[in-house]
């Protein structure tokens, strides 16, 4: 019986395990290997250079700048999405009718491609000429057209980048918060009302938010990981056939140009990917410890 069970285990798991090994782990290890070689235009290099690629990447202002860009983006997008999606969830949760309709409406953008959304933002909402939607609205109030994506002082491009992602992902996190809200025992609110707590901020602060702690931890963790993976909207909003501006260039975009663009410097690109993976690991573990992920109240 045990042998038959093992056989079926491998029948079902084997193909996926093989695929995972072939398409994920082998390239991953190969990439780590490449990072120690001079690998211009080749994936089978012969010239071992030790840690040179790593030191070059860490001294590369463009790569270090891209890490800074990521931090700025995270600082904008994580709190913005958290607050916006929680607000949506609280509003939808209070609805007594058409709740399913509004839940669907707010969730729908999650089904839109990042590429499509970025192009809509770039070409119709936030283009820099007078007939772009944002500039038309500005014009009603007597404002001059703003080149949203081309102006670095003030850096209006952040408004475009953050709003497009906010629109795309807030609905998904709203669903997570809704699920969390619906698990809160109504008795708690009733008890609070009996004790004289006014509905609104006091109840939100002392009952809703503490009860949503587990959901909040998961949401923040997912938001940070998603922010690390930022590529599509940055690339489609800011790149052109000639490349990419040095501001608002996240690490994945920079590594794309280094390793897969005309640069084809697969050694440096791999070293950058390893550095980025380490940064993500450190931040995620640090964040998980800070938020006491996985601990129960009994653990203190």
């Amino acid at each position, binding site marked *: 019986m045990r042998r038959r069970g093992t056989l079926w285990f491998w029948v079902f798991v084997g193909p996926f395990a093989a695929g995972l090994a072939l398409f994920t782990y082998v390239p991953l290890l190969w990439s780590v290997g490449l990072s120690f070689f001079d690998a*211009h*235009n*080749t*994936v089978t290099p012969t*010239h071992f250079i030790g840690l040179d690629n790593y030191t070059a990447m860490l001294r590369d*202002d*463009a790569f270090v700048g891209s890490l800074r860009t990521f931090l700025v983006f995270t600082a904008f997008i994580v709190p913005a999405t958290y607050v916006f999606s929680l607000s949506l969830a609280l509003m939808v949760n209070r609805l007594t009718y058409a709740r399913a309709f509004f839940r669907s409406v707010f969730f729908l953008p999650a089904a839109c491609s990042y*590429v499509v959304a970025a192009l809509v933002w770039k*070409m119709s909402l*936030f*283009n*820099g*000429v*007078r007939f*772009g939607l944002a500039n038309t609205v500005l014009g009603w109030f007597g404002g*001059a*057209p*703003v*080149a*949203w*994506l*081309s*102006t*670095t*002082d003030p850096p209006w491009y952040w408004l475009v980048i953050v709003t497009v992602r906010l629109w795309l992902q807030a609905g998904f996190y709203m669903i997570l918060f809704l699920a969390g809200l619906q698990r809160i025992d109504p008795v708690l609110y009733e008890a609070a009302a009996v004790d004289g707590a006014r509905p609104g901020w006091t109840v939100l602060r002392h009952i809703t938010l503490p009860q949503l702690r587990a959901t909040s931890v998961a949401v923040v963790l997912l938001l940070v990981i998603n922010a690390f993976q930022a590529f*599509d909207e940055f*690339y*489609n909003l800011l*790149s*052109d*056939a*000639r*490349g*990419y*501006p*040095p*501001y608002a260039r996240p690490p994945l975009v920079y590594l794309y*140009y280094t390793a*897969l*663009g*005309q*640069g*084809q*410097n697969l050694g440096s690109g791999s070293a950058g990917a390893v550095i980025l993976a380490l940064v993500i690991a450190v931040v995620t573990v640090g964040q998980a410890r800070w938020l006491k992920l996985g601990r129960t109240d009994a653990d203190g």
Partner: protein
Amino acid sequence: MTMSRRALLAAAAGTGAGLLAGCGSNTGRGDGGSGVTLAQWYHQYGEPGTEQAVERYAAAYKKAGVKVQWRPGNYDQQTAAALLTDSGPDVFEVNGPTIDQIQGGQVVDLSDLLKDVKDDFNPAVLAPKTYDGRIWGIPQVIDMQLLYYRKSLLKDAGVEPPATLDALVDAARKLTDSKVKGLFLGNDGGAGVLGGTPLYAAGLQLVTEDGKVGFDDPAAARTLGKLHQLYADQSLLLGAPADWSDPSALLQELTAMQWSGLWALPQVRKELGDDFGVLPFPGDGGQGKPAVPVGAYGAAVSARSRHKDAAKEFVKWLWVERTDYQEDFALSYGFHIPARISLARKATRLQNGPAADAVRFTTDHGYAQPLLWTPAAQTAYQDALSRIIRSGANPENELRAVVRKVAGELNRVKNAKKTS
């Protein structure tokens, strides 16, 4: 004209873009007489009829079968990745080849194909395909960039077509009002498309003949600083729906002057009639001179091809011997200058008006991006240019860092040569 033209001149300034890479394929015909079938790749041209034309050329070749693949998306990245594998093309057009592709042994030496006709190929575009005295790509057609201006708008503002960079800055300011901007250099303010052009306009180079940094000179900072002046004056159109490669901004009167390409000329002429003129990028300073970037896709043979000799023979047939096809390819669909001097001289469409001016600019002021200008050097320079133009960064400080980076790249390439 579309992305394809933009990609062509990336030889002058850098990397390509776009995530929507895909592939299309069309068959020229089945196996030829030798039983060999060659895979030939083209990037997607915007001009209607080009795809059918190259399939016709392929079908006319009798010594081997040729299967044409017409590849939309970011072609340069597709070919660069395909050259790492055995499943790539045998023959392909390339925005280069790059120095790393040549030194990495990814493309085949094609010198012997041109031994009798080398002098008939435009030297400006043949030079960047030549390394160590050997030729690694056969130029197909020449494209170039130039400055378009609306004659009527300049006349209304009392502005003469600018002959110097100072005059361009001044003209752009005078032509700017609440509805029309003076100049459009791309939505990034010109950092991407201009590339080395302002340096050549200052009488400098990206890389010198002997392989040194060509812009370690105070004139470079002075000239690039004037580009920031355009931005600071708010004379530049930014955030246009279509970027510099498309003449829409000029045609829609969003700007009075626009930097674009030769490919836009038929559309501009159709829309504006005689109400436009063309100029090279104006010179700056005592040593300065006008400059126009030129570039050419080249036909190359992959070193991983299993049919290298057959592929070379096909390239020779199409891009060296069949001058009728070369003329057809350059002039019947889009608007290009034939890479062969003899064909360019015969082209009647290029002998009048702004088209003739453009050809003259190419001859008198054309420069091609040097082969030794690597993508890493390009990124460093372009980032600095972006900071100078848009953020008002100090040009001297920015250029100092770029010179260091480019010198390092040139050194790397030189050492790679020794070990190859």
